């Protein structure tokens, strides 16, 4: 580190190093009911163009637990340099052995800015 700032706690541990890329800051968070996913949801962050993001999705999330339910998947892409998160169910219309579609789980998406460029 040749410039920037480091912060330490009273024990001398580094709590933040402005030169590092791996500290995360919240960019967006959204609760996603299973029924709203449909063929997929897209979240774009044009204000963060050129920056690298990360995203986590907690699924299942919320109330009841249903064995066999599908969980939501979050994928990151950068079309035109705009950080974008897509939320889908894999193969949402797959049928179980009895010929019924699987139950689907709610999710909670958290999107973070990293300190890295794309």
């Amino acid at each position, binding site marked *: 580190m040749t410039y*920037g700032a480091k*912060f330490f*706690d*009273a024990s001398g*541990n580094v*709590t*933040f190093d*402005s*030169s*590092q*890329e*791996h*500290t*995360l*800051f*919240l*960019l967006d*968070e959204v609760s996603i009911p299973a029924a709203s996913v449909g063929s997929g949801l897209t979240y774009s962050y044009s204000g963060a163009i050129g*920056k*690298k993001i*990360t*995203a*986590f*999705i*907690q*699924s*299942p*999330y*919320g*109330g009841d*637990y*249903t*064995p*066999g*339910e*599908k*969980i939501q*998947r*979050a*994928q*990151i892409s950068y079309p035109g340099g705009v950080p974008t998160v897509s939320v889908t*169910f*894999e*193969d949402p219309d*797959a*049928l*179980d*052995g*009895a*010929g019924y579609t*699987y139950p689907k*789980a709610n999710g*909670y998406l*958290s999107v*973070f*800015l*990293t*300190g*890295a*460029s794309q």
Partner: protein
Amino acid sequence: MTYGMRFTNSSNITTISDNQKAYVYLGKYGPNNTSGEYTVDITCAGFPMVFMSVPYNVTEGDGGHPGSGIYYGAYIRSGAYVRRIEHLGGSSWRISVAVINASYWKVAGAGTGTVSPIPTTLRVFGRLDLNHPSGISGNPYGMRVWDSTGALVFDSNGRMLRLAGNTYDTELLLKKDYPGTSTGDPRADYNSYDTSVSLPFSLSGKSICATSRSLVRHYEASHAEYFDGTWEYTYNTYDWASAYWANGSTLYSRKVPHTIGTESFPYTLNISSAASDTYTRLAFIDDSQFP
């Protein structure tokens, strides 16, 4: 930005400003030596990011006790996963964790021996502005940043959510664990359905943020009976979970047994159908940074 301050790193990325909300370490829960499922109630204003310690190169009991039941045999292996996060209301959350301890099942099968515990620890992070709106107490120095609404978005006295390595964009395949169209032994395919990802660091002393797919149920035809002009078809059911286990710099999603049972239907099942493969996102922290 017409006021305030920015810190910019060598990639010309702003790392601290009044427009970015920090996530800070709120504390750890554990270690917990439970084998099986347990819950931990935590307090966090806003959604918590939960990291779980991973069983690291735990092989005690792998292979279980010789036998043919689901809790016996080679497919008994150890792993752990966060099963779900439930909002109880307000700032209260319940984290459900499942730990599959092969040594436990080995002892249960043999009727003798000693269970080697697999301690799991949860580390929780939350929004600074919601959990410490007036700042983190305890240190009378440092730096704080507020946004234009007066919300505290950075406090140098907090431990920021900081990943181990810059593996921001990692996914891991969670397979459906189904032996294709085979109607044979659904227990026999455990090993080839593991998936893994290699990281640029050792996973010793690391915790992961990852979801796990729900249980996958496999059917195995058992028998059919005829009652009052109607056929009833009975199947053995095998519920499998995807649990995490690490060795060296590789994280594995292991197929592990959960429950076994039977289920009957007035029709035959298409047992080649099954849930789809899916994926989890992954993140890693260094436990030593979050004591």
